[in-house]
Structures are given as C-alpha cells and as structure tokens.
C-alpha cells in the first residue's frame, strides 16, 4: 500500500462534521415524526377508507416503494421548482424523505392493523365507541406496538438514506465530508470518519427509539416483556 493516512483534518474541520451530524439528526427526527404521522394516516385510509381511497393509497405506496429515493429527490426538487414552487433544500429533503418513509410506514402499520384480531374491534364497538375512537384507542396503539421493531429498522434505514440528500444541496453529514474533502483532498480518511459517525448515529437512534418505547408502552415496561 503506497498511501499515507492523514487524519489531521479532524483538528481543523471537526466543527463542520459536528454541524453535518446535527443536521443529519434534525433531518432524521423531522422525517421520522412527519413520516410516521403521514404513514399512520395513510394506513388508516388503506384499511378503513373508501375503495377509491384504498386504491389511491396502495398506488402511492407501490409507486414510492418501487423507485429509488435519489430519483424521487431529483424529481421533487427540480419538479417543484419547474412549477414555480420554491422550497429551500432542507425542506425539499424533508419532503422527499417524508414521502419515502411514509410509504414504508404505511405498509408496516397496515400489516399491524390487519394483525389485530377482529374481536378487539367488535368488543370496542360494542362498548359504544365510534369507529374513529375504536381505531385511535384500541386498534392503533396495539398495531404500532406490534410493529415497533419493524418501524425501528425502517427509521434507521431512513436515517442512513439522508446521506443521499447531499445531492440536492442539503449540508448534512455526507455533504460536510464533500466540503472537507474539496479543501483537504483526504477523501478516503474522511469517508472512514463519516462511516464511524453514521454507525454512532444509527446506534443512538436505536437506543433512543428503544428508550422511547419503554416510556410509551407502559405494559412492556411493567411486565418486562421486550418488544
């Protein structure tokens, strides 16, 4: 190997890496929140909605899940602009990622809803609850709890996918890497460092989602049954 490793850029450029990491984190959190809410809403339409609504949602899910995120991002970013709608890069990134992750969330939550036994629905409606209340108070909490591990995996994948948003000028972690590289030309070392930072991020994300679950799913915590 005729290559001298040089990590000295860390001392001068660590701020950019930290900034990039924070942006990646913000991007991820925003997308997880929006994507989850949208995904749940779509899953509700997919399972409870009118036939037309169901068709539309499943078309949406198919379309998103069968095309790459990069293409979606390009399409959205330039497409919106061509319609004279101006969005900042950060917003465009959040929209693209939210759309993407919502499609996957829809499928996951739908499977969760469908796995809840019919008896739960009947019991709840026999207590006089409206359809919406049955859904909100009985079905969805159980569905989300069941599918939580699948959701964690999906959200970690989504966090990793934020890296491609550097392509539409979002200054997240990978973009910071580009920027430092174009000043220091230590490409390989920089990507090594970035890889480690992503590992740390995905570990953090898993830990905090598990922590969140412990707070929200009281029963799991009290009975000490892991998800």
């Amino acid at each position, binding site marked *: 190997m005729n290559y001298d490793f040089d990590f000295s850029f860390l001392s001068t450029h660590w701020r950019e890496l930290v900034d990039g990491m924070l942006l990646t984190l913000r991007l991820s959190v925003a997308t997880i929140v929006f994507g989850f809410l949208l995904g749940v809403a779509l899953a509700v339409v997919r399972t409870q909605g009118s036939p037309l609504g169901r068709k539309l949602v499943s078309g949406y899910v198919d379309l998103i899940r069968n095309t790459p995120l990069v293409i979606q991002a390009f399409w959205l*970013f*330039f497409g919106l*602009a*061509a319609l*004279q709608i*101006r969005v900042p*890069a950060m917003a465009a990134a959040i929209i693209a990622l939210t759309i993407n992750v919502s499609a996957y969330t829809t499928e996951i939550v739908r499977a969760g809803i469908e796995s809840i036994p019919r008896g739960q629905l009947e019991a709840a409606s026999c207590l006089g609850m409206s359809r919406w209340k049955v859904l909100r108070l009985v079905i969805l909490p159980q569905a989300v709890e069941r599918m939580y591990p699948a959701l964690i995996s999906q959200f970690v994948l989504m966090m990793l996918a934020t890296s491609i948003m*550097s*392509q*539409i*000028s979002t*200054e997240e972690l990978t*973009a910071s890497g*580009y*920027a430092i*590289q*174009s*000043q220091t*030309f230590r*490409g*390989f070392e920089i990507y090594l460092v970035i890889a480690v930072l992503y590992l740390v991020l995905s570990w953090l994300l898993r830990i905090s989602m598990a922590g969140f679950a412990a707070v929200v799913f009281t029963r799991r915590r009290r009975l000490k049954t892991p998800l």
Partner: protein
Amino acid sequence: DTLDTIKQRKKVLIAVDIGAPPYGFLDSDAKQAGSDVEAARMLAKDLGVELEIVPVSGPNRVPFLLSKKADLVMASFSITDERKKVIDFSEPYGVVPIVVAGPKAATLKSFADLSGKNVAVTRGTTSDQELSRGIKEVSGVTVVRYEDDATTNTAVATGQQDYMAAAPSVVPAVKKANPARDIDIKFVMKSFPYGVGLRKDDAALKSWVDGWVKTNLKNGKFNEIYKRHFGMSLPEEMLK
C-alpha cells in the same frame, strides 16, 4: 512513471466532468462533447494512445487522480494554491473568469451587495472557494451548494435560486433553458487559468504535457476549441 504506464497499456485515462457544459456534456447524439473532451481527444492522439474518459464531478476530481483512477484530469481544473499542495498542474491551457450572476433588474456590484441573499454554487469548485472567501465579511449570505454545475444551473434556471456564482459560460445556458429568467453577469470575482491536473512527482509526464500545451497554444488549436465553445478568444498573453 505514469508516462511509461500509459505507453505500456496504450491507453490514457483522463478525468473529465461530462456534466458541465460547455466543458463536457452529452450532445444530441448522446456523444461526449465539450472543450475539455476535445482537448482530451487531442492529447490522446498526440500521445499516440487510446483515450478513456473517466467521468468525474467537481468534488471528486482530486481523489480520482490520487487514487490512480485517472492519469490526468482535464475538467475545467483551475490552478489554485490549495490544490497545488496536493497535486501538480501543467501550464494553463484555458482561462475561466468566475462571476456572480443574478436577475437583470438587481443592482449588484460587489460581495457586500449580496447581503441577505441566497447564492447557488457548485460544491468544491473555485467559484465555491472564491465566493466563500469573498463573503466572509458580509453578513447574511447563504451559500447553497450543489453537486455539479448542471444541477446548479438547473436550480437557477428553474427558479430555485436567483443568484449564482459560476463561470460566465454557463449564463447563456441558463438563459437558453428558461428565457423567462433574465439572468445577467453582475461582477467578476476572479479569473482563473486552468490546467491539466497531474499527480505530484510525475516529472516525465508533466514535461511532456507542458510541451504539448505550449505547442497547441502556439499553433492556435486550443484557441480554436475555446472560441467554438465560449464564443470568445483566449487572452492574448496566453497565446504567445
């Protein structure tokens, strides 16, 4: 030495940015075209070897060269002191002034007038560096960095951004893409000569390329290419 390697394998690997009109792009026959593409073809022919164009974009030109994925870089590669620390350049074979452009109506004479505005630029290019340097003292300027020239151009042409820092050659392209957006050159940030990028300590190759550049500047071949793509002539002092 790389020169020997090239001759042995009878092929030269030249990194060109083919997403950067007019230096490199796809023509309507989907063939690679542009000033750097033509120059690269000329170099391979004069060297008597086959040409393989390695497509690169702004940020990864240097890594491609350093990791030996390319023997030479001809990708509107402006000669800067920072780059010289890591790689070598041949004598310049072209020159690119970098400018700030914006809507015709806007008054914009210096970096100070950019205060409060968003400026689009291609990440890792000399425009990026000059812009960043120029606005250090100016408050409220947001630099929006895109991955390659074409993306930057598209962003301005489609109305994502109003201002851009770039080579003047892209301004007509933006106008052509969307005539409704009346983009004009506002001021020149700096002029950069650009050269062929080489790895350090490639003495033999460097001296061959230097000689080749001089010859073709003198015989006007470079100027011919330049005029065809940029609609103007190279500066007088380069042609001597």
